[in-house]
């Protein structure tokens, strides 16, 4: 157990290092002269040179790389060219918004994915299954920016079901006291259900869009795993004893199909926290790190973009490492060391 833990941690560490190195070299290719951008359009050559020196951009690429890796190990992501603030702080301050959106979306994706997957498995090869399959194809072929647009036009502007996409809280509500940074949670902790409700209503539409579009891979996996489990020898054993259908579905079917979901959650989290998030945060004026990344890209803000990419890469590696542990803990078969 200890050895596998060490090995996994080692692999994670190597991946994180790789993330750092790759990020450096990709962002090194970014067009434009970051120093000139930082110094501003009206800076003299001397000022630009000063800025270049300040950010260490006057050094050779290997020297910059050494500096960068040193900073990386000190968890220093540099200073934003745009705002002159430490990138780490800027990311941290925006992270709760992204986490609130991403985690809600992830929750929706998992609940929807498991629900539909199990439904399809129970109704396998029949009409219920077909309908779920149609959903899977449509949801995985839908462009997130398009459906977000359609949803805003109809659900928000047309029928007023959801609040206007102007950030995390509608007008008239003050952000709750910072505890977790998740408005809904913080508002509930502060005993302010009205604010919590308003925050949830604002959160719901972007989270739903992300969650629904992220769910197909979970549906597919849950469906096939549940079918496999329900058609397995051990489910047949359960039927031979005459266990009720519900017991077979939960104890034999779902219990065994949730395992592959765990590994898939990593991929879904990637979409929800980064891929789709950049676009959704743009469209919903959501003040998270996705919007930050996009602005940084627009402004060729080398350090901010680099910080974002590293943060996402590292977070992704960590998420997957944690999931591997969870998987090993949940699935007895993975942990072979216990056997002998």
């Amino acid at each position, binding site marked *: 157990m200890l050895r596998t833990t060490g090995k996994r941690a080692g*692999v994670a560490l*190597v*991946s994180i290092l*790789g*993330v750092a*190195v*790759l990020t450096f070299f*990709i*962002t090194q*290719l*970014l*067009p434009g002269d970051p120093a000139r951008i930082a110094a501003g359009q009206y800076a003299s050559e001397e000022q630009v040179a000063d800025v270049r020196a300040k950010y260490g951009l006057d050094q050779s690429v290997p020297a910059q790389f050494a500096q960068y890796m040193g900073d990386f190990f000190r968890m220093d992501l540099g200073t934003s060219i745009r705002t002159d603030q430490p990138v780490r702080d800027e990311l941290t301050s925006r992270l709760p918004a992204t986490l609130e959106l991403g985690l809600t979306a992830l929750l929706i994706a998992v609940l929807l994915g498991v629900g539909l997957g199990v439904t399809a498995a129970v109704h396998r090869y029949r009409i219920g299954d077909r309908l779920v399959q149609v959903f899977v*194809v*449509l949801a*995985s*072929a*839908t*462009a*997130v*920016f*398009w*459906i977000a*647009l*359609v949803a*805003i*036009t109809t659900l928000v*502007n047309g029928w007023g079901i959801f609040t206007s996409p102007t950030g995390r809280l509608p007008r008239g509500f003050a952000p709750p006291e910072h505890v977790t940074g998740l408005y809904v949670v913080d508002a509930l902790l502060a005993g302010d259900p009205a604010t919590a409700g308003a925050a949830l209503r604002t959160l719901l539409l972007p989270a739903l869009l992300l969650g629904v579009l992220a769910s197909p891979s979970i549906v597919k996996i849950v469906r096939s795993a549940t079918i496999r489990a329900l058609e397995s020898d051990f489910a047949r054993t359960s039927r031979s004893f005459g266990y009720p259908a519900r017991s077979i579905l939960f104890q034999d079917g779902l219990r065994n199909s949730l395992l592959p979901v765990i590994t898939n959650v990593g991929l879904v989290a*990637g*979409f929800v*926290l*980064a*891929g*789709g998030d*950049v*676009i959704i945060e*743009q469209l919903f004026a959501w003040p998270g790190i996705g919007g930050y*990344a*996009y602005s940084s*890209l627009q402004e*060729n803000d080398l350090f901010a*973009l680099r910080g974002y*990419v590293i943060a*996402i*890469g*590292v977070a*992704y*590696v960590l998420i997957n490492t944690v999931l591997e542990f969870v998987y090993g803990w949940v699935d007895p078969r993975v942990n072979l060391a216990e056997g002998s």
Partner: protein
Amino acid sequence: MAVVDAGAALRGNLVSRLRVGNPAAVVAFAVLGTILTLGIVVPFVAGSGDVAQEYDGLLPPSFDHPFGTDRFGRDVFLRCMAAARIDIALGLAVAVAVLLVGSLIGAVSATFGRGVDAVVMRATDVLLAFPGVVLALVITASLGKNPWYAAIAVVIAFIPLLVRLARSKALEVRSADYIAAARLSGASTWQIATRHVLPNSFKYPFVQSTLVASWAILDFAALSFLGVGVQPPDAEWGAMIAEGVGDNLLGSWWPSFFPGLMILLTAASFQVIGDWLDRRLR
């Protein structure tokens, strides 16, 4: 046995297989075929709709303009069809590139093992640590705004996926009994790789590449939507949606709705075809 028209037999066979096997696949082929045909034919016949103020701006869908006109007075239908060429061609090109490069790297990794394999696996680990769109976004930003760069970025983003798949399938095949038999028959490593491993493991990446085409179209549209892919005023579905965002919110839904619908139909068709191939080939 009488001489039969082999082509007709094959066609009949294919159609009947499709019909019996999967009505969804028939629909998917039909949809994709229609879009592709229109994408090729329409621009020749009616122009590619890139002339501003050819018509009045923001006319709603009608008989003359089935998808309406955009703010520049261009026919949205014509532009959607002109875009179809670019999007589908790019989706397919990305899929083929990913398939070839990914399978090659995967097969090499599986064949040579050890050092090469370890390096390739760590590299894919690292690449997979970045969600596809983010990776593509950063790469495009680095290379510069250009549809080709965006396509390359999408290719790079998907390659690790195919490498993984090709490698694991190649490893699976390599441990099969018939590989042992071939080795005992005197086949060299190269002969085993080219004659047994590749043909038997190729179909999995091949099936996957159909899905890659679907995802590539989505990602490419997303990049264009974010402004780093195809640049307006060139027609591309994602870019068209980006252009139509404002009009959409102010009540003219058609300039952005139809390109999105095209993406949906095309990507869904590739998905269905992928699922169908998956079932047929396994």
